[in-house]
């Protein structure tokens, strides 16, 4: 509609000038007519030049945050052109697979000559999950609002929201299941005689004996060896990605419980497997966790998995399958339960 109005106005002005030219029959009106005819071309090329010098990026100071914290999301439009861009339209959306998607927002920003405009949006993450922010459908109009220029620039970033830091959980004595002797030295981490299963980068807390010095010298990075666990016992924290339609907080609770129990195990220096059922793949994903960073990574992977609406699907599938990787700690919205459905915490 606005484009139509712009054309209509332009046409009206041209018509007036033509009438003036016919009335006065003087060269100055013809000059004005020529100027008016040149204007759309000038406007087009000026805008095109400005667009060629435009860069768009989206940034967030941190891709991981905790629940309840506020992080700014910035969309920066930078122009290195002499010509300002009056209005750059784009659509912005922040959504998570676990929650309802809000309506995308249409935003209009102008940029000055050799200037930038940063739109910084503070976002408070109320719940857990992976939030994807995207800015797309960029376009702008020229000075006369005749020509639309679509800008091929799609920007996105993801923010993973984790549960807040927690104290060590008080766990039920049932956690100490048969086979686990608290006086027995845990060999879950393996020892020097164990086979090396993996070599990875050093994480603070790793044993110095595990450092692979030769590789470290070669790569200039501290590399450590992963030994095969000599213990047959391990915990399996199974995160139930069940989203209760009547209780939107159910998934939050489940993730929080899984996280807390995992952190407790880490604090107890327990090796464990963190896993979840990926409904899309119809398979389980397990990650060995010895450190918080591994847990973080595992949780992010869990966030990529879709939530399902069948209660205890993960647990039931685990029990029904041949997978028995250790003592199960089933983390769901109600709490953490063992494989006998006894609440651990």
């Amino acid at each position: 509609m606005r484009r139509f109005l712009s054309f209509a106005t332009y046409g009206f002005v041209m018509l007036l000038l033509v009438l003036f030219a016919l009335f006065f029959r003087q060269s100055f009106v013809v000059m004005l007519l020529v100027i008016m005819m040149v204007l759309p071309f000038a406007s087009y090329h000026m805008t095109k030049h400005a667009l060629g010098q435009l860069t768009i990026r989206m940034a967030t100071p941190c891709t991981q945050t905790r629940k309840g914290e506020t992080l700014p999301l910035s969309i920066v439009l930078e122009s290195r052109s002499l010509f300002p861009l009056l209005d750059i339209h784009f659509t912005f959306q922040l959504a998570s697979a676990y929650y309802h998607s809000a309506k995308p927002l249409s935003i209009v920003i102008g940029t000055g000559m050799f200037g930038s405009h940063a739109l910084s949006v503070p976002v408070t993450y109320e719940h857990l999950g992976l939030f994807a922010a995207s800015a797309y459908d960029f376009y702008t109009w020229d000075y006369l609002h005749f020509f639309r220029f679509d800008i091929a620039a799609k920007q996105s970033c993801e923010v993973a929201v984790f549960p807040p830091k927690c104290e060590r959980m008080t766990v039920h004595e049932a956690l100490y299941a048969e086979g686990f002797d608290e006086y027995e030295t845990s060999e879950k981490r393996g020892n020097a005689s164990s086979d090396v299963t993996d070599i990875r980068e050093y994480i603070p807390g790793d044993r110095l004996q595990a450092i692979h010095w030769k590789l470290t010298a070669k790569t200039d990075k501290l590399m450590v060896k992963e030994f095969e666990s000599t213990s047959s016992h391990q915990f399996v924290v199974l995160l139930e990605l069940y989203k209760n339609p009547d209780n939107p907080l159910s998934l939050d609770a489940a993730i929080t419980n899984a996280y807390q129990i995992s952190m407790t195990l880490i604090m107890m220096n327990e090796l464990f497997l963190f896993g979840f059922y990926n409904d899309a793949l119809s398979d389980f994903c397990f990650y060995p966790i010895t450190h918080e960073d591994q847990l973080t990574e595992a949780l992010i992977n869990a966030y990529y998995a879709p939530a399902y609406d069948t209660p205890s699907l993960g647990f039931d599938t685990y029990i029904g399958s041949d997978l028995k990787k250790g003592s199960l700690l089933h983390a769901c919205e109600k709490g953490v339960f063992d494989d006998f459905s006894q609440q651990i915490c």
Partner: protein
Amino acid sequence: MIFHSKSANKADTELHTGYKMALPLAQYHTMRLQVCLAKALLVFCASLGTVGCIVSAFSLEINMPLIAICLFLFSMLLAFLHYNHTFFNLVYPVIFFVFSYAILKYRVYVNSGFQGIMNVIREKYRDYFVLSYSRQTSEAISNRYLTMTIAFVFLGFFLALMINIAISNYMSTFFTIVMTFPFLQFGLYIDALPGPLYLFLLLFSYVAAALLKRSGHFMLSENRRKDKPYTLKKSVHSYKGNGLLMLQLCGVCFAICLFLTGLTYPIMQSHFLETDEVSKPKEVTDHYIKLLVQNGFYSFFNRYQATGGMSDGRLGGISSVSSDQETDLTVTFVPTSTDTVYLKGFTGERYTQDAWLAPDYDETELREQLGGEAFYRYTMFSSQIEANRVAQFRSIRPDIALQGKMMIEKKDIRDNHIYVPYFTQNSEQLPVAIDHSVRNKQSDLTTTYSLSYFPLVKDYLGMTSPYYKQIVAIKAANAEEYDYENYFDMYQKVYYKTVPQSCKKALKTATDSIGSAESIPELVEKIQTYFSSNYHYSLSPGATPPDQDFVSYFLEEQGEGFCVHFASAGTMLLRAYGIPARYCEGYVIKLSNLADATLLDTEDVTDWLSGTPRMQNSGVVTVELPDANAHAWTEVYLEGFGWYPVDFTPPSLNADEAEENESIFASLFSGMFDGGQPDDGISKNTGDAAGAINESNLFLLIPTAFVLLLMLAIVLAVQFARRYKCYMAMKKACRTGNYSPLVSYQYARTLKALIRKKVPVSKQTLPSDVFEVLSSLLPSMQEELVQAYDILERALYGKAFTSKEKADLFVKQTNKACKQLKRNSMKN
């Protein structure tokens, strides 16, 4: 009162999306100064460009730097009024009063300046169209440099005021062009190209306004009424009002306009002066422009031309008579008395509703009556019967009777009338024989002619003079001519007493009012008294509606008019009394013309006059008669003598009132008031037209003041009505048990109070954010504020009514919060 739509619960929405996001509003409050500065520059460019275009196009000599400085300062003041709402409300009325006071104080200079500007423009137009004359209005102060500068300052101020509204509030290119472009046309129409600087300034203001309007980067927060913060319904966020971007856009416009003007101006200049073929529409407008230049604005309302002398008997088509100050006739003679000299050119016999028709009697009847030679002799007899009688009287009384010679030269008249005084004798020198204007003779080629006449001196036939009887007693020498005289008398009585039906009623009313008279002189005097008491002289009486009788309309409705009105009405009144009368037009020589006459020292008075004039120290003079001396009067038939002129037109207020009336349109402000005297001793022109009280302009002042007061009253009434309506709606809701509107109303009041206390909230802030801010400022009241917000949220979004207790609680808590804030701020 705040009315919110019952949108979905925000908390539920936040729960569903998993996050809370608040898009920040654009930072309108930064760079307000720069935004106002940019607007001020635009206003300055538009107003100075307009003024400069007129000045440069007509090469007016004024103090341009002074005007530029004044406009610059004024534009800054006007634009920065919008910086702050309170400042705006306070200062705008002050500016209005100061401006009005300045107009009143310097009205003489302003009026004179405007007259000067219009006179210069008219002269240029006259030269362009090669007109023989153009209207000129007199200037009270001769120092044009001073007066025009002052006039342009006021014009610039007025333009800046209007343009500021268009630009600062709406950034409207259309209204900016409408207010400024017509001034540009003054010069462009007659190929007077304005200076490049001013063209550039105007072009820049147009382009910048258009671009800024298109971009939206000109608005300050108070203008953004349509903007709302993020809501569920609104999904477009426009970050406009960027002051820096606005300045950059102005810079781009500046560069573009400079480039375009620099590129095109030399070409325009070189081609401008060429005489191109004129288009048909321009020819038509040229005609009206010429009319305007020559005869003024009111000429558009005239059905025929109102200057250049007589109207040849046409009646009622002139709305306003204007004078072109050009000399129509030059008359050389010896004045014999201080009485007015009438030079007749047209005689009207038959009256129609809108014209006097020249006599065109049927000669056949006379031929039949008198037959052949006798008819010829009759015409000879009747053509100069009065002159003959006065001549005969002169032979009897040479001591009082005079005979004079007059030379008349037609200068600016393009008609074919012969203008002759009373009582002219036929002679070979005259281009045509003078009869009693039984029919108008044609004289295309003659511009100068001489004649012999017997000057009309009042006490010849002063209506009480004893000589009247002696003249009347002079009869034809022989019986045959006596028959002619009888027939002549009979003819005049028949043909010059006709009164049409259309004006009989009006004449009856007038005659009833005038009453009867014993004699013609007494009746004439009574009619003159009647006119001077009940009607007044005006050169702008307005045209007679086409379907109305001219005399009736004048007598019953109009009440004012000029000589044509009084002469026509007087003629018809005499006819209504049964006295033969007819209508005449021509020129008059008044005593004031004699004062400006040129004395011809080389001429011998005895060659021009025989007899003793009543004026002492008279001599041969040449008098120039402009079209202001065109006049209409009545001739009354005196049995035994002939046709005698009488004048029913009452004296006018001021001879220059005609010019002053023409200044109404040009000097609307200052022309309304008494010009007064300038205080600084600057010399005035001889004409005091601009200084005279223009009574006819007072009629503009009262209605204008009334309209302004009415508009103000309407605005105030609307504001009051809105508030009253909201209040009554709230009361009504409360009566039904619904206190939600009351809660909304209290919230609105609280928000206003918070804004006044400089709390960082605005009308666009969400209620939840407002209460958050309040909670942070009043930590001791957090629980109460949470409770209050809950009540507010339910009132705004919930379906259930708010109870009285909840509403009272909300009111109590919000009032408490405001008081606490006030105490805290006082402590600080």
